[in-house]
């Protein structure tokens, strides 16, 4: 005699799968939509005293990132540019840590020095 799975369980699993697929599609479409009106840059993330910095430079070494200091930030000669990321979209920074090379998509740059970048999407490279 075969053990038949109750129909209600199958329906529940199917419904869950459908919802997961819907959530995934929603996220993907949101990602594409959010990237439409954006520009992107590649750089390194530095998390320092609660602030997320985005630094760019040709020869950025891990030691440079470890010795990063916010004091006299604008005078640092190790990097080509140092900016502060504004995370208004409440993007998850899970899995991203200091020293990671990332690509960011942004919609606005506030031109104080250091610049403040409104980040829309962030991707670890």
């Amino acid at each position, binding site marked *: 005699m075969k053990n038949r799975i109750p129909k209600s369980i199958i329906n529940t699993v199917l419904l869950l799968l459908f919802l997961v697929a819907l959530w995934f599609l929603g996220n993907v479409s949101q990602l594409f939509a959010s990237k439409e*009106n954006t520009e992107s840059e590649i750089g390194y993330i530095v998390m320092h005293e609660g602030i997320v910095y985005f630094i760019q430079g040709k020869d950025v070494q891990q030691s440079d990132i470890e010795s990063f200091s916010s004091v006299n930030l604008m005078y640092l*000669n190790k990097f*080509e540019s140092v900016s502060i990321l504004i995370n208004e979209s409440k993007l998850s920074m899970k899995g991203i840590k200091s020293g990671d090379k990332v690509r960011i998509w942004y919609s*606005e*740059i506030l031109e*104080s020095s250091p610049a403040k970048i409104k980040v829309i999407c962030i991707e670890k490279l």
Partner: protein
Amino acid sequence: MLVNNSLGGMKMKKITLKFFFMFIFLLVPMNVFAEDQLRSFTFDSNESSHPYDMVNSKGEIIKYEDFKNNNLQLINETPSFQGTGKISPVQIDSLIFHSKSFIDLTPSPVIIEDNLSKNTNEITPYIVIGEDGRTIVENTQIEPFSSISYIELNWADGTSGTCTGTLIGRNRVLTNAHCVIDAGTQRGISSATVYPGVSDSTGWFGSYNVRDYFVPSNWISTGSTSEDFAVLVLDANNNRHAGDAAGFLGIRQVNNLLNENVGIFGYPGDLIRAGGVVSQFGMRGNVTREDTSLAFYTIDTAPGQSGSALLNANNQVVGVHRGSYIVNGNTMNGGPKMNSNMFNFVSQALQ
């Protein structure tokens, strides 16, 4: 004899203690006793009912409803003022000729430490669109350039930065709200110094500490682009106000700026680093796009130029440069324009 000895010992103890405390006092840095110029900022958004309510550096609110009708005279611009600047040789000669004792109250030029030039790397400018059209301002001692000010900022978290601002009153400077309050953290600057008309790292009109500032409440609550402007209140230097020495520019209310020629002058970090000295740079161009509160253009700018005024052909302030935007896939620079709401706010802050 014993009494004398013990009295002498006590005296010695007292003197030693006095010297000890004096020594400790000398070891303590003076800035321990100096309060930050600006108190820590606290703001309760529930107490604000209008996006253009004025919030000062203490978090106190002046209601928009209370000041919007102050402009009943239907003015739409404020006057400019030609500063006395440096006393010219002719004036000095004439004073000597009349045998009057003369005390030059002009704040002496301040040499700005050339820290920026220590960076020999050229920064990749983010927002130079096409070929770089910015040129150096050779003479910053004449209007409108004498009013364009370099601002050094110190944030409560210990970081520092720079912005540009424009003198629009004797002791009032127009700049961006994001130069004084971080909308994300709702934290303000702890101190700031303003240097009008800087060239070759020299502040020809002295330096002025920021005593207070006014920011629209909606900037603090939402970080809204349209309300990214602020008015700084400066302390006098040597009993002389910045605007008296350097002069100040008038503001003008505008509805439309499309196709109007505007100039943006300020202190861009990339060119300052490349040149090795703090100098003023700028460019003129047309407004190519606008909405009710923002103007967009392809005039080249860079970090450090936030807060630069948008100057019309008569060098009146018709907006404030903020940064770059991606509009329909194109990079454009832009900032809030002096619409009626902004004009009411700024003219109120001038009083």
